[in-house]
């Protein structure tokens, strides 16, 4: 990577244009992108969903998904033009010299075959190695990826190993034929932060070890900062900015690039309050015979935001289901304004139902696609407040105004709205009941950074104006820092800690809280290296004892 001779260029894309098919016609989704990647170089490709990151990443292999077509431009991989190469030619490169690591390893491993069969498949079908060699190499890679039991884990089927392990196995699969280029397509997005750290470290070390070039696609700037030498920012199929990683982080030039930092810049002063509106006391809950909540107690002060954080499976959403009455607890009670709520939803009065509303992660599936916005927001107005006709219409318009949407949205169907607008409608629907408490279950997780910021600002403003209380369930620590007053940390169905934000975020902390917070990637490109060194120190010290 030291010289600038043409020989060092591995991949060169010039003025690439790609069409995508939607709404019955072809649209240009990649609009003339240039990209140069040298041998051994790692390029971060960032942007929001719909920016064309994955499309561009796959195009670097000469591949277009069904519904996409490469229209013009040039893709040269090591001197070979892929743009108009027949698929049989490209197949010789795929799996041997260019490999792909997909976002969801769980979905991208074939459930019918053992891991090792899939790991060695490409190397065998391209005739690169013999069966025994390929198997030995695969085990070696499992070891390099720090998978447990590297000699036998390959005999397992995909459903028999965890998501984090699968993602490592998929990187091992990509490395198996010692490719020149790997396309990583959001490889850690589906993982918990504590799992993500290990996978990132393993991927980085393997890529360095074999001097493989890579394109690392992600929407997470902090992750890409750990992995990439250079960063390319993409928006609406166009390059916004190209720069070496450190340069881009310290001095982003394009306004769009700057805006990607926005949520992390959002801050709220935490306030302590002893006026408890919702009190979950020593709740146990189970799905069938498997117990998922153990002695969970959460106190929610009036007019404040309590963030419930934890990894997937920690019982965050189950706690919400207990509060709403969807899942009656097997022990313990939920108190609202000091009164015990009936455990099951059907035993609660309309008034009790009105007081607690819920907003879901996926606004798409939380609304009836055949109902207009007016119907969706109007329904709770009718059900809880008995509003009809003109009065209802007037209130719907007020609510639309409250969520910063225009009155003419009233006749639209959910399908005609953007992701952020849909989530705003869901917020309006919750507000329509005039609840005391709104439970927000990962409401910003499916949204892009800028849209996320808009929704969070809206929620904060509504809290200030209406005094509504939020129970905010999320796995995203950046969001927690932005909006919460108090934080509840959950692990394996238990509450590890509940305290005011500043106390949870600064030492002394319980061990798990510390580990969770330490695992959240930071913008600093040295963060991962430093974290790994610290962990190594801890291990070394423990070994020394």
């Amino acid at each position, binding site marked *: 990577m030291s010289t600038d001779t043409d020989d060092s260029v591995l991949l060169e894309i010039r003025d690439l244009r790609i069409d995508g098919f939607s709404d019955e016609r072809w649209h240009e989704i990649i609009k003339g992108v240039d990209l140069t990647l040298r041998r051994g170089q790692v390029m971060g490709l960032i942007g929001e969903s719909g920016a064309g990151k994955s499309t561009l990443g*796959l195009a670097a*292999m000469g*591949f277009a*998904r*069904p519904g996409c077509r490469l229209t013009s431009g040039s893709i040269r991989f090591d001197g070979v033009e892929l743009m108009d190469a027949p698929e049989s030619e490209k*197949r*010789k*490169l*795929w*799996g*041997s010299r260019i*490999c*792909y690591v*997909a976002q*969801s390893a769980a*979905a*991208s*491993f*074939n*459930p*019918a*075959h053992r891991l090792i069969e899939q790991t060695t*498949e*490409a190397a065998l*079908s*391209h005739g690169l190695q013999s069966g025994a060699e390929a198997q030995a190499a695969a085990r070696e890679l499992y070891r390099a990826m720090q998978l447990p039991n590297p000699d036998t884990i390959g005999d*397992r*089927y995909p*459903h*028999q190993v965890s998501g984090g392990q699968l993602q490592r196995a998929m990187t091992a*699969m990509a490395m198996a034929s010692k490719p020149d280029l790997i396309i990583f397509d959001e490889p850690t997005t589906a993982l918990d932060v504590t799992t993500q750290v290990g996978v990132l470290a393993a991927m980085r070390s393997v890529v360095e070890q074999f001097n493989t070039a890579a394109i690392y696609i992600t929407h997470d700037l902090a992750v890409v900062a750990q992995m990439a030498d250079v960063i390319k920012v993409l928006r609406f199929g166009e390059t916004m900015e190209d720069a070496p990683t450190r340069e881009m982080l310290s001095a982003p030039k394009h306004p769009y690039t700057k805006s990607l930092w926005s949520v992390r810049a959002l801050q709220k002063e935490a306030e302590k309050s002893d006026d408890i509106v919702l009190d979950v006391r020593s709740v146990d809950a189970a799905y069938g015979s498997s117990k998922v909540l153990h002695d969970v107690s959460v106190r929610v002060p009036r007019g404040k935001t309590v963030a419930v954080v934890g990894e997937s499976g920690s019982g965050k959403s189950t706690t919400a289901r207990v509060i709403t009455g969807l899942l009656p607890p097997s022990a313990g009670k939920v108190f609202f304004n000091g009164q015990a709520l009936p455990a099951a939803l059907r035993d609660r009065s309309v008034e009790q139902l009105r007081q607690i509303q819920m907003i879901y992660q996926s606004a798409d599936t939380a609304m009836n696609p055949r109902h207009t916005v007016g119907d969706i927001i109007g329904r709770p107005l009718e059900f809880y407040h008995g509003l009809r006709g003109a009065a209802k219409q007037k209130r719907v318009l007020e609510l639309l105004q409250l969520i910063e949407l225009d009155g003419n949205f009233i006749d639209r169907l959910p399908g005609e709205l953007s992701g952020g607008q849909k989530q705003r409608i869901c917020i309006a629907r919750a507000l329509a009941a005039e609840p005391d408490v709104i439970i927000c279950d990962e409401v910003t997780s499916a949204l892009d950074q800028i849209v996320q910021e808009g929704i969070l600002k809206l929620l904060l403003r509504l809290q200030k104006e209406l005094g509504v209380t939020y129970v905010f369930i999320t796995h995203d620590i950046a969001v927690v820092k932005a909006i919460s007053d108090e934080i509840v940390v959950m692990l394996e169905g238990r509450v590890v800690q509940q305290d005011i934000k500043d106390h949870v975020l600064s030492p002394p902390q319980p061990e798990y809280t510390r580990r969770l917070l330490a695992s959240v990637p930071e913008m600093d490109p040295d963060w991962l290296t430093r974290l790994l060194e610290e962990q190594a120190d801890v291990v070394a010290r423990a070994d020394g004892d």
Partner: protein
Amino acid sequence: MHPVLLTIFQRLGLGLLTLFLVSVVIFSALEFLPGDFGEAVLGQAATEETVAAFRRELGLDQPAVVRYVQWIASVLQGDFGTSFSGRAASGVDRSRSVVEMIGPRLSNTLFLASMAAIIAVPLALFLGITAALKRNTFYDKAVSASTLTTISFPEFFVAYLLILLFSSWLQWFPSLANVNDDMPLLERAYRAALPALTLTLVIVAHMMRMTRAAIINLLASPYIEMARLKGASPSDVILKHALPNAWAPIVNVIAFNLAYLVVGVVVVEVVFVYPGIGQLMVDAVKSRDIPVVQACALIFAATYILLNLFADVVSIATNPRLLHPK
């Protein structure tokens, strides 16, 4: 015990339970038929004593529960009773046991069914897989159109068409499929060719379309894209990556169609005058030969249950989540 074995035994138990319930239904359905068996069978001319003696002989004077237990007990020992036909008011008994009557007919039907299955199942799988591989090409459309055409015609029409073509004009095959046990295998196969072909044409479309749909349904999976991006050839993508995950729906449709080959062939047997169990049952119903009807119904039910059980087991055995639990 391996959980798969456990599940299979559970299914087997459920199958037996279903069979038991079906036997109750069959028995009681015939019990509710109007009129007196004895009179109906022996005819108006029979004297009261003959009828009473006949009823006693059949045990019809016993309560229904007792008769059911006796019937099911002998069925379990392989004895389906004695046919009513051959008895006459004259009192001369030329009747035969039901097993004796059904045995050869059943073996003929199974022979025809196997013949049709041996042609139809591989053909349907082949057409389905190749159509999925070359989807939306002329080949795919031609296969879909032709199989849909054959399934759209009533089976007797297909049968007559085949007779017209292969026996009247080309004179390759006989139009009457009268087979017997003494014939050598090839001779039997030759005579049964046209009914087998008719059945094949009737069932191929269904199985072929399900195979094609099940595979194409999987082609949108991320793991199929992954296989392509690993450089797998189109045939590897289908055979190695899609097909192993598509067995469950395909096998269910195959089982359903195989069951049809045994229990639904009456029309085809009648057209080709093939001495199968379907014809026997039609005749038995006409002549109120209750023991034969009962036996046929029970065999049909058992066939359905057995084949669906088989499909269930295959679905379980091809699901790695069940076969290789965590």
